[in-house]
């Protein structure tokens, strides 16, 4: 199957979620297979709610979610088998070591230990956690915990990786390790969808960028396409982002 024939990694149609107000408003979003997609937006724009619905953590009020051609609402188990989710707050077990945590994650995804163990060791090594393999996570810094959570998200070889602010709390070296790992996965054919407030990361790493405000996608494209839409070829992503968000706020 050529890339053009492959189903999109993510296809969202009319996705809606309401809490005390509308958080996601009939959102349409398509992310191609093998793409690094950055989802930007101000606080409370609906980014995390959207991604939590895609990951199966929240049930949408309306709309459809398709992950690599699988109806994620109709067959969530099949969709989850090929997806991984990393939240901004690393949720790991304090009383487990990184190796034990990865053994558990691999077991949950039903991965053969002969495959998952070398993969786990390689991931922890790549993320600089080798000296801490047998230490319980309770003493880890926030950055170390985030790296363990990320290793957990990658150990079962997902085809769609969804990350909500994965670089929060990481030092420069760790952030570079993480970015390198994610780029390797994209090069190997995985799809990465990431929210971030660090616009420079989106600018450098993303193939395409989506900007979400008030639960709707207000702009989407490559950096060059966004600049073209904005009418200034030399504008930085930060300037464009602020202009887009201000326009939406004024319209609201």
């Amino acid at each position, binding site marked *: 199957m050529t890339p053009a024939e492959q189903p999109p990694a993510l296809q969202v149609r009319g996705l809606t979620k309401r809490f005390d107000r509308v958080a996601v408003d009939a959102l349409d979003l398509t992310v191609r297979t093998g793409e690094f997609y950055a989802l930007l937006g101000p606080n409370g724009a609906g980014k995390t709610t959207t991604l939590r619905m895609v990951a199966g953590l929240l049930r949408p009020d309306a709309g459809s979610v398709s992950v690599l051609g699988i109806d994620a609402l109709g067959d969530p188990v099949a969709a989850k088998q090929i997806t991984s989710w990393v939240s901004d707050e690393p949720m790991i077990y304090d009383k487990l070591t990184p190796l*034990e945590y990865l053994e*558990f994650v691999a*077991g949950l995804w039903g991965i053969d230990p002969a495959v998952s163990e070398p993969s786990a060791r390689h991931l922890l090594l790549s993320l600089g956690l080798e000296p801490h393999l*047998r230490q319980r996570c309770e003493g880890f810094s926030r950055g170390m915990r985030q790296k363990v959570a990320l290793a957990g998200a990658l150990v079962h070889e997902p085809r769609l990786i969804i990350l909500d602010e994965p670089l929060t709390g990481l030092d420069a070296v760790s952030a570079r390790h993480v970015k390198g790992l994610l780029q390797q996965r994209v090069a190997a054919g995985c799809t990465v969808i990431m929210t971030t407030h660090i616009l420079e990361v989106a600018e450098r790493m993303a193939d395409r960028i989506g900007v979400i405000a008030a639960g709707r996608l207000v702009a989407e494209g490559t950096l060059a396409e966004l600049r073209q839409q904005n009418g200034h070829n030399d504008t930085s992503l930060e300037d464009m982002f602020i202009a887009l968000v201000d326009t939406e706020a004024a319209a609201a």
Partner: protein
Amino acid sequence: MSSAALSWFARHEIRLAWREWLAMMTGGRRGRKRAAVIGLIVFVAIMHLPAYAVIGRFAPLQAPLDKSTLIVITATIFLAWALMLSQAIESVTRVFYARADLDLIMSSPVNLANIFSVRIAAIALSVIAMALVLSTPFVDVLVIGGGARWFAAFGVVIAIGLSAAAIAIALTIMLFHLIGPGRTRLVAQILAAIIGAGFVIALQIAAILSFGTLSRFAVLTSDAAAAFAPGAGSIVWWPARAALGDGEALLLLLAGGLLLLGVVMAVFSARFADTAVRVSANAAPAQQDGGASRFRGGSRQQALRRKEFWLLRRDPWLVSQTLMQLLYLVPPALMLWRSFSDSSTAIILITPVIVMAAGQLAGGLAWLTISGEDAADLVATAPLPPARVIRAKVEVVLIAIGATFAPLVAALLFASPRQAAVTAAGVLIAAASATAIQLWFRVQARRSQFRRRQTSSRLATFAEAFSSIGWAATAALALSMPLVAAVTGLMTAAILAATWKISPRRT
């Protein structure tokens, strides 16, 4: 540091203690302050009835007392002191580990010895305040029945509260220096859990070994205890004499308590700062685990069960609670052992104790495995249906309960196969009921929030307690009056059905 600044800090400490108490009573929900205070007042008012039943007959007592009475009163005061010590140890560890303000205080331009003296005094104050509230129904009953002289008992509560707080602080700081901050947390939790229970259980063991009964009073009122006790003028009887209205003994006790707390403040307030620094530097020591390190295969449920067993084995609360439950089981186990050579019918008492312990332990285990999920997102995004996740967690609870209580049931089998069968059924039903209640009232929480589990849903807490008591009574009655057991069994089942009907998972 000026006295105004110190009094300002004291007010700050009291406000923090009040809010911690309020958060514990309201389950962290806002807008329930009035309900919590009214609930406390109603609780204290209702407690006058059991207080009258337990202590009413002591109200007419007058000095001089015989030795047996002095021993009973002194033992009761010692039990209260042990419980206060337990609460004080809890408060001290909370100040060191749970309060997030140590960095702020230690980086501020204040005299740390002064400020930690205030903090020590605040711990003592909160321990005494709680003890005064809880002792009020008992002292009221004594005052109503025996006159105003019994008001002196409040003074005794204050004096033993001062000494309990002082000893808790000294003990905790010494533990820090002896075994380090990491281990102190676990040891202090275990100490706090078993100190109060330990005294009662020691008396029960003495009663069983000497008199073949579970009654603690058998030991306290025995001729042997009276012969062993010191003379009437001994310092040991000061608390009892003070409670009866002896002003001199009360003043000496209060002075002793204040002096002890003052010495602890003088000696340890400076070390409090050092200890706090060591805690923040070693908040979570790097503990090594995992020997073989080979990943194990198996189904997804097996992976979940393995993870739950890992976490349960390493859970400090569970270690302390299991130790406490096992401690409670020592007296009935001793009874069981004695019954091999003695055909006492008291052996029937073992069954309700075991069933009750199983229900209580299962409730805690079920909360830890079902609600206390630290990586809820990970489990929710795993490719397996939620029902299978829940099934694996329930299996863990039942396996753990089975492993804990199987040896006792097996020992009973030798004494009475029928009783063993009834006990096994009781353990299974009580554990399943407590687990079901936790399932119906499950909330997503971190394991470290375990302390708040009983306040997050009062209904679940009461239902769990009534269910354990109900099944324990049913098991005991099944051995002696089977027809009555059918009635209590149906009543307990009805309580469970009503709990299910009004649970959030049902509505």
